[in-house]
Every structure is written in C-alpha cells, then in structure tokens.
C-alpha cells in the first residue's frame, strides 16, 4: 500500500497547518491587545474621571474678582483682554473685571497704597520684588501666601526659572508667580561695527564675557573727545550691583542690612574701576552729556557700548535705521567663581490680595496669566519683558532670534539684594545721587571722601526701621 499523500490530503494538511498557525498567531496578540485595550479603557476611564472631576471643579468655581494693574496696556490692552477671554473659556463661572491703572510703573505703587487705604484693592495685583515694593506689601499683610494652594494643585515651580521663583519667596512663604522678569543690567549692549573696524573679536553674546580690565581698555580706546564715547555706565542700584559683582563683590550684604562698598575689597575694586574711567580718564558721559543716551546714541554711532540688560538689546536692535552705522550685539560680564552668570535679576509678581473672596479662583487666574501662553503674550503683545519661563522662549525666538541669548544668563543668574527695611526708593535715590556725585568729572572729589559720603548716607537709610 502506498504511504504517499494524495494531493487532496496535502492541500488539506497545508490548509489546516496554515489555519492553526494563523489561529495561534492571532490568538496571543489578540489576547494582549485585548488586555491592552482593557487597560487603556481603564486608563480612559481614569482619565475621564479626572477630566470630569476637573471640569466639575471649573464649572463649580464661581467668583467675581478684580484685576488691577498698569501692565500690558501699551498695546491697547489686547493682552489683558485676550487673557480674560481665555480664562473665561476655562472657568466660565469666574468673572474678572479688569481695572486698568493709567500711568507708569512708579505711580502704580502709590495708587495701590491709596486703594489699600480705601479698602478697594483688587484681588489680583502686581507688587514687584525687583522694585522693592513687594516686601513692604507682605509686611503690611496686603498679600496672601500661595504655598497651600500650590501644594494642593501640585504646581511645578520648575516651569519658571529658579531665580524668579526665589524672588517670590519671603519669610518662608511664596507670595506670587513671576510676571515680568529679565536679567537686570546684565550685559553691555554694543555696536558690533565699531569692534569690527577695530579688528576686535567680541565674545559670544550669551557666554561669560571678557575681563573688566579689557572692558575698561575698550572704553578708553573707543572714546574720542567731542565725537564718540566708548562706554556709558548706569549709576544706579542695579548697575552698581552688576559692576561690583563682576569683581566678586556686591553693594549690600546678604541680608540687606549693610552697604559693603568700603568693607569688601572686591566691591571697592569695582567702584575704583568706575571712578578711574569716569573721573581720572574722563571717558564716561555724565548726565545730559549724551542725548539721547543709551540706545539712541548707540544707533547714531555716538556710543560703542552701554550698560543695560537683555531687553535693551532687543529694543536697541529695533531702533536701528541705518545698518552701516550700527549693528547691535551684546556681551556679558565675566562669570562668578561658582559659575553663575553675573547679573542682578529683576522681576515682578502677580499676587493675590489677602482677604480675597475666592482664593482658588484668584490663584487659578494668577497661574493663567503667568503660564506659558500668558507669558508669551505678555512679551509679544503686552509690550513687557517677561523672560520668566524656558518654555516661552521658542515662541519668543521665533519672533526674534535674539531672545536665544538670554536663556543661559537667566537659567543661571543671581537675584538682587534688597534693603532689609524695604526702604527701596530711598535707597535707590541715595545710591544713584551720591554715585553721580562721586563720579562727577566736572567737579571731582577724592575717591575715598566721595565713597565714604555715599556709604554713610546709604547706611543711614538702611538703619531706619522697617515701615
């Protein structure tokens, strides 16, 4: 009897085999898929639950709040309106009335004080740590700490650059989220054409810069009497802070109770560096010598570099009308021994009023305007410098590639030191006026005498009690 399979048998076997293999191949993954599907469905259920819960919360949140600020108004309040509209879509039960405060920055704080006295302060306000009004507001119990709300919300504070979050902290609490923010007087805005003509290669705009001796040499080199100035310095608190830090010193001690310009050798070195340029070599413009000053003089080709900050670079570049006269760039100060970029970061704050009718709604709004979209809009449409978050930079760089230069100094920057007694404006005025007097090339006074006068006057203010 033959053992050979018939064709029919062969085909039948092959079919069975194929079917089995196919069945086997389909079975296991299907089971897995099914498992996965089940898991995903579970996830979906969980997600939906969460979403549903959040939606329920958003719907439940009902409040009527006021938002009072002068910020964002330069562009016909579009940023403010846009933010309010976007918030309304997320929280339809929360009504926010925007109460714009006409006028500038300095007038705003007086108005806030008057509103406090009248019992009419808005729920969301902006006291600025970078301008010394913040601590006074905390001491007067005007503001509400946001720690608890942030903890419940599990807010990731690393969304903002650490330096800006540090400045929101005081007395163990966190009092707001960053509104505007920049590196302070952290760079020298420069006319690259002058350096090219002189055959000098400038460092990268976002890397630690040359030594202060080199910067001093450049200031002398580019000065031509009656024609151009090489360097313009800022005789004010943040300007002095950065110069003294470039030498490894500072203006105030860490707790802001003492001025250390005489006690700290490095700070003294920084002041002497300025004095030599301004009074001995007379290469620094004084007062109204240079008009317009800063960006105006730079783009007119009358100034090679001036002490300012990141936003000044952007604004100066916008002001250029003739690229054969000026090409705007910047370079930074030498880095600190611990690797920090030398700057004096300044920022504002979105705060919530103590005693607000709805802390949760107010907090949600603060998060909303300090969030990524809010920060991008604040920069691009609100006319403000709000370089407070890394995730806002791609959009800002898309609008202007210069913004890429500011990331590293902000990510690795230094906070300002402020007077412990919150007498910020008195401190600023005294420091600025006495420094102008010390650096007066037309009526020179001995360095030690002028510096002693400055230190005595400022210390007198620091010794006053907290208001």
């Amino acid at each position, binding site marked *: 009897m033959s053992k050979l399979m018939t064709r029919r048998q062969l085909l039948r076997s092959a079919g069975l085999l194929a079917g089995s293999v196919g069945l086997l191949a389909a079975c296991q993954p299907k089971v897995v898929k099914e498992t996965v599907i089940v898991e995903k469905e579970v996830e979906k259920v969980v997600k939906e639950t969460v979403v549903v819960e959040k939606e329920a919360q958003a719907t439940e949140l009902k409040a009527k709040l006021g938002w009072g600020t002068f910020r964002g108004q330069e562009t016909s309040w579009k940023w403010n309106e846009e933010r309010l509209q976007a918030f309304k879509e997320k929280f339809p039960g929360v009504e926010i009335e925007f109460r714009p405060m006409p006028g500038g920055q300095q007038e705003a704080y007086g108005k806030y*004080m008057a509103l406090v*006295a009248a019992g009419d302060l808005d729920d969301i306000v902006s006291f600025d740590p970078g301008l010394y009004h913040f601590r006074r507001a905390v001491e007067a119990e005007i503001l509400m700490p946001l720690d608890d709300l942030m903890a419940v919300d599990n807010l990731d504070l690393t969304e903002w650059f650490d330096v800006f979050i540090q400045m929101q902290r005081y007395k163990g609490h966190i009092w707001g989220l960053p509104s505007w923010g920049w590196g302070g007087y952290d760079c020298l805005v420069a006319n690259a054409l002058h350096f090219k003509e002189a055959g000098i290669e400038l460092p990268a705009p976002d890397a630690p810069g040359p030594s202060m001796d080199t910067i001093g040499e450049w200031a002398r080199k580019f000065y031509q009497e009656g024609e151009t100035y090489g360097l313009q310095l800022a005789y004010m608190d943040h300007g002095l802070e950065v110069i003294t830090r470039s030498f490894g010193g500072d203006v105030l001690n860490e707790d802001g109770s003492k001025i250390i310009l005489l006690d700290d050798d490095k700070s003294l070195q920084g002041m002497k560096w300025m004095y030599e340029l301004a009074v001995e070599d007379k290469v620094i413009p004084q007062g109204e010598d240079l008009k317009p000053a800063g960006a105006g003089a730079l783009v007119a080709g009358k100034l090679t570099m001036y002490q300012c900050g990141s936003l000044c670079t952007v604004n100066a570049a916008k002001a250029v009308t003739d690229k054969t006269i000026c090409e705007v760039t910047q370079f930074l100060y030498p880095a600190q021994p611990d690797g920090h970029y030398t700057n004096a970061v300044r920022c504002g704050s979105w705060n919530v009023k103590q005693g607000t009718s709805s802390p949760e709604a107010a907090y949600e709004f603060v998060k909303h305007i300090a969030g990524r979209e809010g920060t991008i809009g604040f920069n691009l449409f609100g006319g403000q410098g709000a370089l407070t978050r890394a995730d806002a930079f791609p959009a800002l760089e898309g609008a202007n590639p210069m913004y890429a230069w500011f990331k590293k100094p902000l990510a690795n920057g230094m906070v300002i030191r402020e007077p412990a007694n919150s007498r910020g404006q008195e401190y600023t005025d005294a420091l600025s006026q006495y420094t102008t007097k010390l650096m*007066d090339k*037309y*009526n020179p006074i001995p360095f030690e005498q002028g510096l002693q006068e400055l230190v005595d006057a400022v210390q007198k203010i620091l010794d006053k009690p907290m*208001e």
Partner: protein
Amino acid sequence: MTTMTGRTTAKTDPATGKRVHSRIQRRNNLYGFIFISPWLIGFIGLWLGPAIAALYFSFTNYNVLNSPKWIGLGNYVEMFTRDDLFWTSIQRTLYYAGVSVPLGVLGSMILAILLNASLRGVTVFRTLFFMPSLVPVVAAAILWVWLLNTDWGILNQALRHLGWKHPPSWFGNRKWAIPSLIMMNLWGSVGGTRMIIFLAGLQGIPEELYDAAAIDGAGRWQRTLHVTLPLLTPTIFFNLVLGIIGALQAFDAAFLTVEGGPGFATWFFGLHIWKHAFQYFNVGYGAALAWFFALVIILITVLQQRLSEKWVFYYGGR
C-alpha cells in the same frame, strides 16, 4: 432800619445788647452763602480739609498702609537733626529763588517799559514775548534739555563758535544745573504774566506827572527814575511777593529735567517734600516738611509786607 441805599442793617436788642438780624437780612445772608458755596465747598474739601489733615499727619508716623501713629514732634526733630537733605534742599531752593526772582522781576519790568511805548507793531512784540509763558512746563523742559545738550545743543554750538572751546555741561554739571533751570525759568517768565502786570501798572501812571516833569526839564532817564519807578513800586512789590512764593515752591522743572540731580544739585525743597510723601510713602514726614515750609513762606511774605512800608509808594496814599 433801612438805610438810604436800601440795605437793611442789624438792630440791637435792648434787652441782651446783641445784634439781631432781620428775616430779610438772614435771607440775604443765606443767598450770599449759596452763591459762594461752590467755591466754599472746593476750598474746604480740596484745600482747608487736606491742610488740616496734613497738619495732623505731620505729628504722626504714617505710611498709608497702616493707620497714623502719634509721635508728637518726632518728624520736626528729625527734620532739623537727622535729615541730611533738609538743609541741602533749603540751600538749593534759596539759591534758585535768590537769583531767578530779582532777575525775572527786573527783566519783566524793563521789557514792560520798552513795550509800553506807542510804537507801530508793539502788540506783535508783546505777543511774541508772551508766547514762551504759554508753553507747558513739560514741553519746555524737553526743549531746554535739548537746547543745553553739551555736545549738540544750540547754545554750546554758538559758544564754541564764539571761541569758548569747552562750554559747560549744563544739566550734567552740578555747578551749572541750577543756572540752567534759572535760564529756563526766565525764558518763560520774563515776558509772561509778570510783564502784563507791569504793563498794567505803567498804564496806571498819570500822564500829567510825566508832563509836569517834562516841563520842569526832566529828561527821559530822569522821568523814568523819578516818576515811573516810584509809581511802579506797588507793582514791583506785588510781582516780588508772588515771584518769591512761586520760586520757593519750585518743583516741576527740576523734576522733569534731572529729577533733583546731578548729585542732588537741583534737589529743591518741593521735590524733597514730594519724594518723602509720594515716593517713599513717609506721608507724616512729608506733611511735616510741607507745613514747615508753608510757615516759612508766610513769614517771608509778612516780612516783605513790613519792609514794603519803607520803599513802596502808593500814589494817592495807601
């Protein structure tokens, strides 16, 4: 009793000896108060009330955020003993007033005498000289900062052309900052309201006095010296009083141009008050400074009034 003029006068009650007003008179008085009430409400609400409140605050420690805390004469003691800028600001203000006022009054008077002549087109000149006083102080400040720019300002360019190789840095040099503000002030004030007041004073001098002097052989200069000036003394006195009060309150020009700088060179007393009250929020201390200065101005005005008896001549008696 009704007088010849038809006005009612008060009667005296024989029993009490007190004046008794009739119903008509009381009604008339009421109408009088009603008509002046808009001004009265403004005066009390916007001047007297705040002045009294400021007087109270001057004896307190008050920063707007907290309630005023009574400290008695603490602010006044601080002013005289611990505030370094108190005497600096007084010195700056007296320097500014001491130079700008006499120059301004003299300039206005000379200009008015010149423009009092009956010449063709004199109205055009009066208008041209008056126009700077119409420029708002903000615009004037911006204009003068540019005019006095060290390198490119018109004034320094002209001075270089005349041979002054290194003309001053007007607003940048502490020595020249106040003279710059004085220049700015004189540009606006010499041909302004002061000149108009002098013109009115000159027009009030009787022509017959000039005729009489001319008949007696007085020349032009003698007529000016012995007729015009003596009869203009009341106007000079008036402008001097107002000029000193205005100059002592100097604030806006210094604030707009150099904000009290450079190096406190233009830190006037008005600015010192404003800084403390509205920027540093030391409202109590700012109020004390304000009241102190108000009293100083009142004293100076009273002194001027007393001294005027020696040199001001009123035609027809006081």
